[in-house]
């Protein structure tokens, strides 16, 4: 078996606001080139995992235990100089909202090239050439215009393409995509999903794909980690989990979620009974931990 690119081990995090667990004993392992769906309803802790890996947790969330190993080395205890080399180069981010993720006051070209210059030490000319190559990869048809545009002159989908190009620019080993399609139109969402998958395949990059949509997972993820209230409920290969869900919550979610393979079916809300059982189970786990 190959060495995992990322392994999160028994990660727990506390909210300084109310002292509750935001993550409890979360473990997940990613092989090189694997696309992992991180699924769960809003507030389940998906973004917290993503931010913990990227080292950008807000000061109000504190890691209470566990490890985040990147190619074997723990990021939580790594020296700042080591982190500076990893983050933004080996591990990059596709943010959720292309509206706020590009600086409104700077041109696209400048924003696309400054990472290449700062992280990879390219000079202006080669960074520019690489930026055009990347824009071609993410299928931007008029790169010269886009390069000289300000963000507000581009559509949301176009901006997200730029951010995808930016994330894959340093040939990272791991890309974290935090709900990269949530802010987009439905038609654009599909294109962006396909694009992430294609870029990932072309670069051989492992991806953590954060979403609350099991349909998206079924489309592009090799494996899934399902979270509820900071706990891992079930994880495994996508096909296994969708065809043979073991947990009642997973089954209910599959029944509830839009079925892309069978449109019009499903869409029944998760029964309250399932949630009640889930909360009881989580309560037992947390008392068992203490």
């Amino acid at each position, binding site marked *: 078996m190959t060495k995992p690119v990322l392994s999160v081990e028994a990660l727990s995090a506390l909210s300084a606001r109310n002292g509750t667990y935001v993550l409890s004993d979360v473990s997940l392992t990613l092989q090189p080139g694997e696309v992992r769906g991180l699924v769960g309803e809003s507030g389940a802790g998906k973004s917290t995992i993503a931010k913990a890996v*990227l080292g950008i947790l807000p000061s109000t969330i504190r890691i209470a235990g566990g490890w985040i190993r990147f190619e074997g080395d723990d990021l939580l205890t790594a020296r700042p100089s080591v982190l500076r080399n990893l983050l933004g180069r080996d591990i990059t981010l596709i943010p959720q909202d292309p509206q706020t993720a590009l600086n409104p006051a700077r041109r696209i070209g400048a924003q696309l090239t400054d990472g290449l210059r700062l992280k990879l030490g390219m000079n202006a000319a080669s960074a520019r050439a690489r930026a055009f190559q990347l824009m071609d990869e993410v299928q931007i048809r008029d790169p010269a215009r886009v390069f000289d545009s300000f963000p507000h002159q581009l559509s949301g989908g176009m901006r997200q393409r730029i951010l995808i190009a930016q994330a894959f620019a340093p040939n990272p080993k791991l890309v974290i995509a935090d709900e990269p399609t949530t802010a987009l139109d439905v038609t654009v969402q599909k294109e962006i999903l396909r694009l992430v998958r294609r870029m990932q395949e072309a670069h051989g990059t492992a991806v953590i794909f954060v979403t609350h949509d099991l349909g998206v997972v079924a489309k592009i993820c090799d494996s899934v980690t399902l979270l509820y209230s900071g706990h891992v409920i079930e994880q495994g290969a996508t096909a296994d989990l969708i065809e043979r869900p073991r947990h009642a919550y997973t089954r209910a979610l599959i029944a509830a979620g839009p079925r892309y393979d069978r449109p019009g079916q499903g869409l029944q809300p998760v029964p309250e009974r399932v949630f009640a059982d889930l909360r009881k189970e989580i309560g037992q786990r947390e008392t068992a931990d203490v």
Partner: protein
Amino acid sequence: MTASDFLSRLLAALLTLFGVGVVIFCLLRVVPGDPIAMMISPSATPADITALRAHYGLDRSIFEQFVIWIGDVAQGDFGRSISLKRPVVELVGERLPASLELVFAALIFGVVSGGLIAVAGTLSRKTPVEPLLDLINGLFLAVPDFIWALALVLLFGVLWPVFPLSGRMDPSVSTDFATPFYLIESMIRLNLAVMLDILGHMAMPVLALGLPLASIIARTLKEALNEAMVQDYVLLGRLKGMSEMRLVLGEALRNAVGPTLSLTGVQFTFMIGGTVIVERIFSFPGIGSMAIDAVINRDLPLIQGIILAFGTLFIAINIIVDALSNRLNPRQTHG
């Protein structure tokens, strides 16, 4: 700004000035107080007074007086000062440049030091320096310009007399100036001794006018910077390897500066109003201290001229601030 934009701004400016003229003209003639009473000797007879009133046109109706005045103003004639017996244009032309040098120096001081404090506060986020800066700035925010003026007089005029207490320059260093902008002229001529003397005289009034501006800019800009610093593009910038300094100056500042710019425009007009008291405290020969004398003497033509000069200045500041914010916002310049 296109040519038609410019024309409509100009038209609006002229209309505003006309409105200011109407209001101030009527107001001055309705409030009690008589310019003639201020200038006559106790021995004057009622006939003398009537003659003087007729001489200055004060015997006519307000409407008549206004039409005459506006007609003259349209031709560039702002009348003669009653108390100083010289053309208003000349007097304003002498005093306004001194005040302009003062307020622009205070503006530069306020923007630079306020900006530096805001950036320092943003860079020191999550360190003990930040609340300390906030605290000091919070105290400074509560101090108005004339209190600063008095405190500075005590501090640098009396306790530790490093700056001259009054005037625009020492009479002994006066040289011939070709323009009324003494400071700028001495800078251009590289006349260091004169320049330093003028700057020394300006130091305290500039601080008094500039410190309130500095603290309000510091607070507004820092709030906007802090807000910008948690935006996703700053986060991504950090991941792309930018230093904190570059994140603040290169990424956040341009997006944060908008509210500060509008506020600075407004505060700057307040500051021009502040010259009235601050110039008086430091006997600075600007238009502000002349305004007080004009009001005390009920010198109607001079008051009107000064108010119109202030009005023109306010409008010019507004236009400049608008143009600057347009330039700063790519949505408006390139959209």
